[in-house]
């Protein structure tokens, strides 16, 4: 559920509903926030709709649930801090805050850029400070979560090996040679499950493989020293 929240929020943020009537500052800042998100942000900044206590709590809940990849609490509106908030408003504000944080992290926006958007949504200085604090605190974790979205080749995370002595088979007596069984554990696309690629090697083949891996390591070291 947490994963779907993320993709939903990203699509919201990227909904380039460019309404030139909204003013040139959207394009200037190059953060493509849709109309819905901008509306939600304006509601978030408005202390009539979202009282101060609720705002702080909501900020914390939004940022933590994205970073920890936890699903959103369906009974959020039942909390006493949100008693005075209309449910539809709460939903829109939740989504808008999440979209802003994610879009800013994705584009590596600095504090000034984010403050500018908040000022244009008529946030009070106090609320701007609070949101910026949360943004700075969670920016790296947000970027880390975003970096895992996307397609990858199977990513090798571990290697297991086993050395057998091949004595004979049903066609041939006295085969008599050592055989290595190598298990490469791979992870696909940030899921927790691993798949295994198994290969067998004779001594010569393993020496060839290790030689090539050593070359790759040396290549890396040379690049790292540049």
């Amino acid at each position, binding site marked *: 559920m947490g994963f779907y929240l993320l993709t939903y929020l*990203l699509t919201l943020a990227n909904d380039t509903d460019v309404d030139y009537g909204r003013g040139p500052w959207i394009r200037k800042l190059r953060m493509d926030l849709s109309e819905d998100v901008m509306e939600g942000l304006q509601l978030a900044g408005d202390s009539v709709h979202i009282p101060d206590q609720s705002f702080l709590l909501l900020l914390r809940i939004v940022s933590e649930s994205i970073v920890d990849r936890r699903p959103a609490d369906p009974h959020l509106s039942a909390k006493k801090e949100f008693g005075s908030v209309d449910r539809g408003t709460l939903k829109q504000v939740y989504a808008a805050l999440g979209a802003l944080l994610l879009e800013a*992290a*994705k*584009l*590596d926006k600095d504090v000034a850029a984010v403050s500018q958007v908040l000022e244009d949504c008529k946030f009070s200085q106090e609320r701007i400070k609070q949101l910026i604090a949360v943004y700075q605190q969670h920016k790296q974790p947000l*970027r880390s979560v*975003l*970096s895992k*979205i*996307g397609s*990858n*080749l*199977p*990513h*090798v*995370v*571990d*290697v297991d*090996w086993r*050395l057998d*002595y091949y*004595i004979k*088979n*049903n*066609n*041939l*007596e*006295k*085969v*008599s040679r*050592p055989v*290595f*069984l*190598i298990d*490469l554990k*791979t992870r696909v696309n940030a899921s927790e499950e691993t798949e295994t*690629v*198994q*290969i*067998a*090697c*004779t*001594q010569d*083949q*393993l*020496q*060839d*493989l*290790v030689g*090539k*891996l*050593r*070359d*790759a*390591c040396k*290549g*890396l070291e040379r*690049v790292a020293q540049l």
Partner: protein
Amino acid sequence: MLLILGDEHKQHLEYLCSVSLDVVQEFCRLSVEFLMKGTNAKIYNSAAQKLGVEAIIIQKAIEGLMHLFLESSKLLLNEIDFRDSVKAAGFSDELQSELLRCYLENQADIRRIQLDISMGLSHYRDLEWRLDVKLASRSLRHQVEPVVTMKLHVKDSGKEETRLLQTDPVNLVHMTRTLEEALQELNSAHCRRICRNF
């Protein structure tokens, strides 16, 4: 170790006792060729016509030879054992020498084929690698993430496959160290003792 030939097997090979040496040489050559490349029924018919016997007898003789060579290679019979096994089947000395010569010449190739058709696991053939740096994706800009992409070539009973994998520098170094340890293990006293005794 002796290879005991079954009665039926001996019967099939009996035909060889009644023909001249160069015919036996030809049959030996044919049987090895059939082991390498597969049988060819037309040869049986043409040989049958030339020698004036039924094709089936030629076929049984050649197949008997193929079986003899296969079993001897499987057990890795040395010269003496091979001679003794063949002598027990009732071949003359001349014939024995001829069969022995053919066996020794082709033993390595026959064993190689037997190994190829044996149950095997996907064997490593080659590894290609390259270093990339991930700069951005749709979901995140301004990244600097090094990625090592690898193409692993494996061969599984004749079929070749390639697998695309990736890893990061830390895991690459970990992989290299772990596999170096594996290689070292082969030189340990324990492994050398076992390998020597078999």
